[in-house]
């Protein structure tokens, strides 16, 4: 437990005194270790520790709080600040509103699209979902089954070209009286140029109000590579982190946030249709610190 470790480090400087570069050196090393074990990208961890050090140096240690507690409080506050101080909510951008979801293979996009549609329906809107994943075996069946099981309108299209499916889905918004259209895309690698080009074409046709990057909450150091690749190619404006019902520390959130500055909007917390929670920076900060 990080707090206990830091308490031990600071036994020697209880009471009066200032936090100095010398006496916090070990604490910072322990914190860096904790962040790396939590899957925070090592470059991000390095920058983060530097900002904690800046905040900590020269800070007075009062009787009411131990140095260890003070450092943990600074770390906690810095984490919350980096993860996004105020809960950023999805801004409604008029009707009909178009969402496109993207990400690496297996991150949870199809399941998340269904969850989002359900979330909008519970909030009184009329969502329609469509898939342009013409590659993965039974990918479109998967979304169709999820939609049917949860009374969500599913756009049927027998084209096998992602761009034309997208174009037809947009035309179908009015006929279906939908006010939200959610488009599921195939998982792809940021280094697969052909697939990234395709994603770019689909995005151009959709001209979506929101492009959401769906990332697996258990992702390690590679989180940074993936988001940089997707940002360069198509840009996105929000992130959904999935599978956080696991015991993963989820440091990828910090890396993604630090590198892209994009808000984390939701977290996936299970396979059920309701398992989509709003992202709370302060709860998440505690999770990362373990």
């Amino acid at each position, binding site marked *: 437990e990080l707090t206990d470790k830091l308490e031990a480090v600071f036994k020697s400087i209880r009471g009066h005194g200032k936090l100095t570069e010398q006496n916090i050196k070990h604490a910072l090393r322990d914190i860096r270790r904790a962040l790396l074990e939590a899957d925070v990208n090592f470059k991000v961890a390095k920058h983060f520790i530097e900002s904690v050090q800046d905040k900590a140096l020269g800070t007075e240690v009062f009787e009411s709080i131990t140095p260890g507690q003070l450092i943990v409080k600074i770390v906690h506050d810095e984490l919350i600040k980096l993860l996004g101080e105020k809960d950023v909510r999805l801004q409604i951008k008029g009707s009909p509103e178009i969402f496109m979801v993207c990400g*690496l293979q*297996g991150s949870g996009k199809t399941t998340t699209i269904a969850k989002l549609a359900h979330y909008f329906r519970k909030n009184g809107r009329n969502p329609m979902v469509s898939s342009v994943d013409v590659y993965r075996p039974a990918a479109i069946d*998967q979304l169709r089954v999820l939609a049917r099981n949860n009374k969500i309108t599913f756009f049927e299209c027998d084209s096998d070209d992602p761009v034309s499916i997208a174009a037809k889905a947009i035309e179908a918004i009015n006929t279906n009286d939908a006010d939200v259209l959610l488009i599921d895309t195939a998982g792809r690698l940021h280094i697969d140029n052909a697939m990234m080009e395709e994603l770019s074409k689909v995005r151009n046709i959709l001209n979506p109000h929101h492009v959401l990057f769906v990332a697996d909450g258990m992702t*390690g*150091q590679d989180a940074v590579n993936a988001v940089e690749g997707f940002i360069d190619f198509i840009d996105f404006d929000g992130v959904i982190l999935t599978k956080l019902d696991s015991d993963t520390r989820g440091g990828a959130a910090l890396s993604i946030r630090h590198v892209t500055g994009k808000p984390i909007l939701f977290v996936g917390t299970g396979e059920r249709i309701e398992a989509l929670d709003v992202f709370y920076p302060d709860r998440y900060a505690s999770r990362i610190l373990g």
Partner: protein
Amino acid sequence: LLPFGATITDDMLDEVEEALYEADLGVHASEFLVEKLRDRAGEINSGKTDPYTVMKESILSIIDHAKEKGTPTEKSRPYIILVVGVNGVGKTTTIGKLALRYKNEGSSVLLAACDTFRAAAVDQLEIWAKRANAEFIKAQEGADPASVAYDAIMRAKARSTDVVIIDTAGRLHTSRNLMEELKKIRRVLGKSDESAPHETLLVLDATTGQNALTQADVFNRDLNISGIVLTKLDGTAKGGIVISIIDKLKIPIKLIGIGEGVDDLRDFDPESFTEALFA
């Protein structure tokens, strides 16, 4: 990255440490390997060896100590392979690739769709069975995974099928109920043949960070994993966490996934894997 003739300095060790972290080796393995470089600084600085060789030798030695588990030298028939792992790692796709491999070797293969939970999971596996020209069995309406597994073994015995591969639903190692469900499938397999399952393959995603070690630990405790398949190595993730998994749990990495096509499966090669860590 680690040129021959490089001298051990603190800056150089920092660079090495960063490269190891970047490959997802994790704190424990990275610190261990950096210590190795410090220990042998004398030999390195005098040119007797170089940093790259020292690291490579340490890693290969760890990989070498993985035990060959669970593969009987006497091949049973049907040879039963249980495939498990958390959600979305590539189990179903890997089974499709594995099925083709066995078919190309002349074996008859039956794929059992024991993921009775996820939307279109059965349809997905059925398409893979067609691609690999393998037999396929799925649940009777509402049947549970264990009974599908049992039916699969019965069918394989009746038809003298060589290999049965069992697809299971993705599940978190943190879900007690779902892990118990897997143990039940395993028990049912053991009833039909006390040496079954002959292989229990844990599929891990190369993009997963330190949680992969926890996954391997829990799945191994509950099911006695005979080998690991590391998927998505065609991406930029290096999967270095498997070094710690092999070191701590002694489970061998048997196969790697390098793409989404039916041919994108390779035997794990310690040398090329280790070289790729530093690429």
